[in-house]
């Protein structure tokens, strides 16, 4: 890999290997994403995808050793704590803080940007309008439908202006009709925001709109270790 290409590429994940204590391992191909580009990672559940996402965030993982280099805009992130990586996360469940209103959830993402409280309020109103959830500010997450929650979770992640958003099975728990709808909306939203994203799912349908596709590799057994 040469230096020139890595500065141009927004997100570069290279030489990534997941190694389990029992000796299995998975070697991932090099991943590079441009601004606004999405990567769909497809694979059955329980094979290390979520673990890998957490490693990208910088959460120490038990049972698995993961090596590799994460570079965003030319900066190697490996030694940075989560809050300084500029990577957003959207989860399948508990996507929002249940005890806070929609506005409070969104404001949390804006706190790091120097902005008056009034500007914050206006921005939240405007953004909610944009995603079609006008006047949702004071609602609590339990008052929202699954689709609304998913949209607000993604909006919240985007408001923090990350370089990359990780979506971990974001459409689980939605019924089939709504799943399709939310899925399309998500890709549109990401493209319009110009944020690179990695979407992990076990459903092929969730990923058809992604520009890049990655089939999660089967784990191999390390002969030397055995």
């Amino acid at each position, binding site marked *: 890999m040469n230096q020139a290409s890595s500065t141009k590429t927004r997100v570069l994940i290279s030489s990534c290997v997941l190694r389990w204590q029992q000796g299995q391992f998975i070697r991932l191909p090099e991943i590079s994403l441009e601004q606004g580009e999405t990567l769909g990672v497809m694979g059955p559940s329980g094979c290390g995808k979520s673990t890998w996402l*957490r490693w990208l965030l910088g959460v120490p993982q038990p049972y698995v050793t993961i090596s590799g280099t994460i570079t965003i805009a030319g900066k190697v992130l490996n030694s940075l704590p989560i809050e300084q990586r500029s990577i*957003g996360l959207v*989860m399948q469940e508990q*996507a929002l803080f249940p005890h806070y*209103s929609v506005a409070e959830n969104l404001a*949390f993402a804006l*706190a*790091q940007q*120097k902005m008056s409280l009034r500007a914050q309020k206006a921005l939240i109103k405007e953004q909610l309008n944009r995603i079609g959830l006008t006047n949702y500010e004071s609602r609590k997450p339990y008052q929202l439908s699954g689709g609304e929650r998913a949209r607000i979770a993604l909006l919240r992640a985007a408001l923090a202006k990350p370089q990359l958003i990780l979506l971990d099975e974001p459409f689980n728990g939605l019924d089939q009709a709504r799943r399709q709808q939310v899925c399309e909306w998500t890709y549109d939203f990401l493209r319009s925001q110009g944020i690179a994203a990695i979407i992990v799912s076990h459903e092929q349908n969730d990923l058809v709109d992604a520009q890049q596709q990655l089939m999660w590799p089967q784990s191999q057994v390390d002969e030397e270790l055995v």
Partner: protein
Amino acid sequence: MASEVSTVRFSGYGVAILVGLFLFLPWVVGLSGINGLVPWLTAEVWDYPGLSSVIGQSLTVGFTATTVSTLLASLIIYAEQRRPSRLWALTFTAPHLAFAVAFLWLFTPFGWIDRLLPGSWSWFEHQSLPTLTLLLISKETPFLVVLGRQQLLQLPFENWLLQARSLGASSWHSWWFVVLPAWLKSMRLLIIAVAVYSVGVVDIASVAGPMNPPLLGPLLVSWQQQFDATTVNLAAQGFWLLIALTVVMVAWVYVQETLVRKVCGRQLRRHRSLQTRRRAQAILGGVGVLRWLMFIVSMASGLTLFAMSFAEGWFYPALLPSEWSLQGGIAAVVGLAPQLFETLGIALLTATLVTLVLVWIREWQRAQSREIPDLVFIAALLLPQTALVLAWLHADSVSYVIRSETGAWWVTVYAHCWFSFAFAYLSYAPAERAETQDHLTVGRSLGFSYWRSWWYFKRPQLNGALAYAFLVSFLVSIAQYVPTLLMGQGYVSTLTTELVVLSSGAEWQAPAVAAMLLWLLALLAIIVLGSSIRRLHFSRDKKSR
């Protein structure tokens, strides 16, 4: 499918009715014993000398103990979110009366530490509000920590932390702004229990609290034990006063919780520094010091009781007694043997019954696929114990039954079970909820009956939690004072009632021996159940990762 089969098993309505009776009878009986002497403006109780101090001091203790122990517990929970320390459990299990006796001997002016380093120690006066408050805080903080951890494990707090940090907040801010308000909310019932206990505290207050005037709890019990018409009236009106203070405390817990949520909600939208390491380190260090301080104080208190039990002629300013006498201590132990056996017997019976009922109730909820709110099971903790017991005492049915020795004994055991149940439920239900019924269902598909497959397939997962629930009810039982005194009618004499009686005189050896035996009993229970509980901690460590 599983629930259909289970319903068949649980159609044993007999047990359901028995358990329902066990839980609700005390309320019915209590209601029938409530007096109508609500203290309106003209009531005698308002003329009782120093009543405003009585109320003011009770509320001060209630507010301070509740708020400070909640604050400390949240700091400890924060500091130990990854590596929970087991030392708190040790302090949590020390019987509070025994702890108070030893604490006073050690830390009061002219106490042991003062004799060791003269003039150094004049903070904790005898019969003072700060001493009492400190004692309450040092008992309630470990309680909130130990049970608070289990509440925390029921929250997806690690997910929240992850999301909050991915939004650019430090782990410090993520914890305090996102996890704390949710944890506080999940702790509401427990904190109310602490608040209610603090505002109506009797036993520790009569050993360490102010006496001129006393707090409402001890005052009410002393009124109850008088027989002239005026005092009987005062007792009846004081009952309502205590209820009123309880309501105030419950309101305070809500206010406290709302305040924290509001402040956090406001703060989370403001710009935050990422330089929080130093603050986090300070808390970690502070909690570390506190942990060892509490541990050392607990151990020192235990040793003190031991020393007092075998000391003869220990007068100010001597650092050590003029003579150690094994004989005197042993004679006192032998003299207390009946109380020791009575305490042990009642506590074992209580813990066994409570654990059985607990398991049954949880399985019943599973079978009905319905979660009954915790409130139903722990409502006993939300009213001052003294008020409840007084209501029972005035119910004709109870006063008839406890007239005979057997009746009094069983009613006392019942009261122990009922109060222990609430605490045990709090410690068992979260762990049980975290388990799935899968193992049990697999067992049943192999042809085992419901309870056999529970025993072989589900119980092993819950051994730790069961041992813990057993331990908690055991500990609650051995420390019961007011119910044993008033329901036992002099027929039931346990180490705790004996300790209070012996403390009414000037002796130090006899009360110390009673306190030491209480403590040893608690310690023994921990040692016996310890291995199972360690397993519980281990499995929790795994889960919390």
